[in-house]
């Protein structure tokens, strides 16, 4: 350990200590969760009941259940009562199959003021389980910055005041793997950390960084629990870091009922990736960055705050660039055994701006969202800017999706003259101005200037711009790409009614983890009727929720497909991979399940989350509204950029387009699309067993077995 790290360690003050008996994980569960209260330094063990496992499975399910019981209806995100819960799930931590190390983080969000969930790779959740805990539940607030250390090798947990370590992730993670791991790199890979950064302290969209260890680079790397601002809650609780240590990982650490079945399905899947990834998505070469060019070609890349779907400079941030910038040939899986290996890095990047200017760093990314959000959506097609912005967002702990969408909104407001340099503090905040954009990110890190205002998020910026600068609230509402208070992720829903539903009806806000239907809907035209769309918006969010109950990454489900997939009955569901997951769940838990059982697990948690939103004062139809920019052309320029397509649609509706002015056509199309959205919402609610106001019906709760008295009371009050 270096001298300066030893100094930091020596400055730690022990606030609380807890020792516990270690015993092996049984069929994916430890059957206890760890409770920590930072206001009074309580550390306690809570049992996991059979009912909790049956109804909530794990991961996000456990997080929601624990939060439900931990808070009151009136709890706010920054009350000590708010909790941060991290849990992997029964499958999390197996090694034989790709994408099996995810953690799910649950809390109340500073952006939405409601329940938020966020998923993340890295080693923390699985190591936490093998250390002895199905989940960690943190409540209260510390007086001064603390580190919580869970030593899974010895069975000891400490809360330590930690005054000297820097908060920014790229420095802190490196320090902690040395401080708690030592000098040997295999000892360092036994450590995983959760950290935030200075940006999380000064914005509402702080993220959390979860570490894993790269033995070839001999450096810690990070994945993000990005959405919803849980990093902001973390720093509000004065948590500097969570650290877990677990040294003896094996293929059966998860206590599976049948290791042989896990080995067979895993070996088959690794071979499938070996044989086909190169010809399919090329995840092992460039991760999700290949989507930039495709979205650009299909007019689906968000450009200039989701105004347009493509840009002539799109090729400057396309996959060929990333193939060359990412170092190739290293296993980049963020959990052991992930051969899909999507997390690529740019090595030896010299930072050109900010407090770390001149440092040579490893940059984790960019993936698609970063290139699309920080880049295209802001009109910046410079790969070096995107890499640098990606780095600083990671180390400052800022959600790159919220940063991209919020900055794009601010840029459009500036370009439209809704705000000016008085608001931006002198920054010439036009689309394409990379210098202004990176400065705004540094301001988020420092908590000052226009960056700090952007850091309030789109919903609050709309209010600020209207109240302080006289901007027209109707235009702001139309172009501000947020719903439920969360910024939209980086896909253009404008021409896909199904994706509008996918975003608008998602529980946490417009994140695409629930449904990504754009191609199925718009390009393939596989869900033409309202009923088809409603069925897709029932099935896919439910199916995809399942990954978050179990500790799984969804990429191996459909970002790689078996060669005969196109010939199956329902290729979009990837039936062979669904069978793999049935096999894995059965092999881990010893319960022989079917794919219907998996859907039932999810549907329970999905509906519970909807009721949780209701409990916090949201969760009804009005909160499922989306801004018109997500549905159609707001402005004349937007209409004219796709005039042929829009004119054709209006003609099909019986309009005489030759006789109409563009503003008249904009209005006619808008009326049509807004009414289509309402019809879709009706169809989806009916399919999900909810009322016309979006409230789960009591008989739905009964069918799912979550008709607990307090849950029923909330839906009855809301007319369910």
């Amino acid at each position, binding site marked *: 350990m270096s001298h300066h790290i030893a100094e930091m360690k020596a400055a730690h003050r022990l606030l609380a200590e807890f020792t516990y008996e270690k015993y092996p994980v049984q069929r994916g569960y430890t059957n206890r969760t760890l409770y920590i209260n930072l206001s009074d330094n309580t550390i306690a063990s809570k049992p996991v009941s059979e009912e909790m496992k049956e109804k909530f499975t794990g991961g996000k399910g456990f997080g929601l259940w624990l939060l439900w019981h931990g808070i009151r209806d009136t709890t706010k995100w920054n009350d000590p009562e708010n909790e941060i819960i991290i849990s992997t799930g029964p499958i999390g931590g197996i090694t034989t199959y790709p994408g099996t190390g995810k953690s799910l983080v649950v809390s109340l969000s500073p952006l939405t003021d409601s329940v938020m969930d966020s998923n993340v790779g890295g080693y923390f959740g699985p190591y936490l389980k093998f250390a002895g805990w199905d989940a960690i539940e943190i409540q209260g607030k510390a007086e001064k910055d603390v580190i919580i250390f869970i030593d899974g090798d010895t069975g000891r947990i400490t809360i330590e005041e930690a005054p000297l370590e820097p908060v920014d992730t790229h420095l802190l993670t490196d320090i902690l793997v040395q401080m708690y791991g030592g000098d040997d790199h295999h000892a360092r890979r036994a450590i995983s950390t959760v950290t935030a950064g200075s940006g999380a302290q000064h914005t509402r969209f702080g993220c959390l960084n979860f570490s894993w260890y790269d033995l070839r680079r001999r450096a810690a790397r990070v994945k993000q629990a990005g959405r919803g601002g849980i990093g902001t809650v973390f720093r509000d609780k004065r948590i500097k870091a969570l650290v877990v240590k677990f040294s003896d990982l094996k293929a059966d650490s998860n206590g599976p009922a049948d290791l042989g079945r896990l080995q067979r399905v895993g070996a088959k899947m690794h071979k499938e990736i070996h044989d086909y990834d190169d010809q*399919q998505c090329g995840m092992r070469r460039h991760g999700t960055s290949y989507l930039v060019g495709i979205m650009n070609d*299909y007019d689906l890349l968000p450009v200039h705050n989701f105004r347009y779907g493509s840009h002539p400079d799109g090729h400057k941030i396309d996959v060929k660039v990333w193939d060359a910038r990412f170092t190739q040939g290293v296993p980049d899986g963020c959990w052991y055994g992930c051969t899909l290996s999507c997390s690529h890095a740019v090595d030896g990047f010299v930072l050109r701006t900010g407090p770390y200017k001149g440092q040579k760093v490893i940059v984790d990314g960019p993936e698609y969202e970063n290139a699309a959000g920080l880049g295209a959506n802001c009109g910046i097609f410079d790969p070096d800017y995107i890499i640098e912005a990606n780095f600083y967002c990671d180390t400052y702990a800022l959600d790159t999706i919220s940063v991209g969408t919020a900055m794009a909104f601010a840029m459009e407001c500036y370009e439209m003259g809704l705000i000016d340099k008085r608001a931006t503090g002198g920054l010439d905040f036009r689309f394409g101005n990379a210098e202004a954009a990176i400065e705004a990110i540094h301001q988020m890190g420092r908590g000052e200037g226009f960056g700090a205002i952007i850091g309030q998020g789109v919903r609050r910026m709309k209010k600020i711009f209207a109240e302080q600068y006289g901007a027209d609230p109707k235009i702001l509402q139309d172009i501000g790409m947020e719903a439920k208070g969360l910024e939209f992720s980086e896909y253009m829903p404008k021409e896909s009614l199904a994706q509008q539903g996918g975003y608008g009806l998602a529980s946490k806000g417009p994140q695409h983890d629930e449904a990504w239907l754009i191609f199925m809907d718009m390009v393939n035209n596989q869900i033409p009727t309202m009923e088809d769309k409603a069925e897709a918006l029932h099935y896919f969010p439910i199916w995809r929720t399942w990954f978050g109950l179990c500790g799984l990454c969804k990429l191996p489900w459909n970002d790689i*497909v078996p060669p005969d997939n196109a010939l199956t009955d329902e290729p979009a569901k990837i039936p062979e991979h669904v069978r793999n997951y049935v096999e894995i769940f059965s092999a881990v838990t010893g319960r022989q399940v079917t794919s219907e059982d998996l859907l039932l697990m999810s549907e329970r948690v999905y509906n519970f989350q909807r009721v949780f939103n209701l409990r916090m004062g949201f969760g009804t139809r009005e909160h499922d509204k989306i801004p018109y920019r997500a549905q159609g052309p707001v402005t004349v320029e937007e209409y004219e950029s796709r005039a042929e397509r829009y004119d054709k649609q209006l003609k099909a509706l019986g309009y005489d387009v030759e006789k109409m002015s563009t503003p008249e056509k904009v209005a006619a199309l808008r009326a049509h699309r807004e009414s289509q959205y309402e019809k879709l919402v009706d169809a989806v609610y009916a399919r999900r067993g909810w009322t016309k106001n979006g409230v789960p019906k009591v008989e739905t709760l009964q069918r799912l077995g979550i008709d607990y008295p307090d849950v029923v009371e909330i839906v009855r009050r809301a007319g369910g």
Partner: protein
Amino acid sequence: MSPSAGQEPAVVRVNDNLEVPWSPGMTVRDLLRQCRFTYSLITVTVNGQVIRREEYDTYPIPPGAEVRVIHLIAGG
């Protein structure tokens, strides 16, 4: 005045929502180009028959054909 048969320009219907003008000798590859379908993970059927990737450059599309170009793309 009713149009007589053979005077309407021939079209190819793609994914039941796109009409593309047909031209003699049009191959699958020509059609993909015209639709600007640049994505590679696709399955193509012409009048219900699956066309193999190796045949895209040669398989001729008949006028009035119903073509499906299914993109298998998963998103982030």
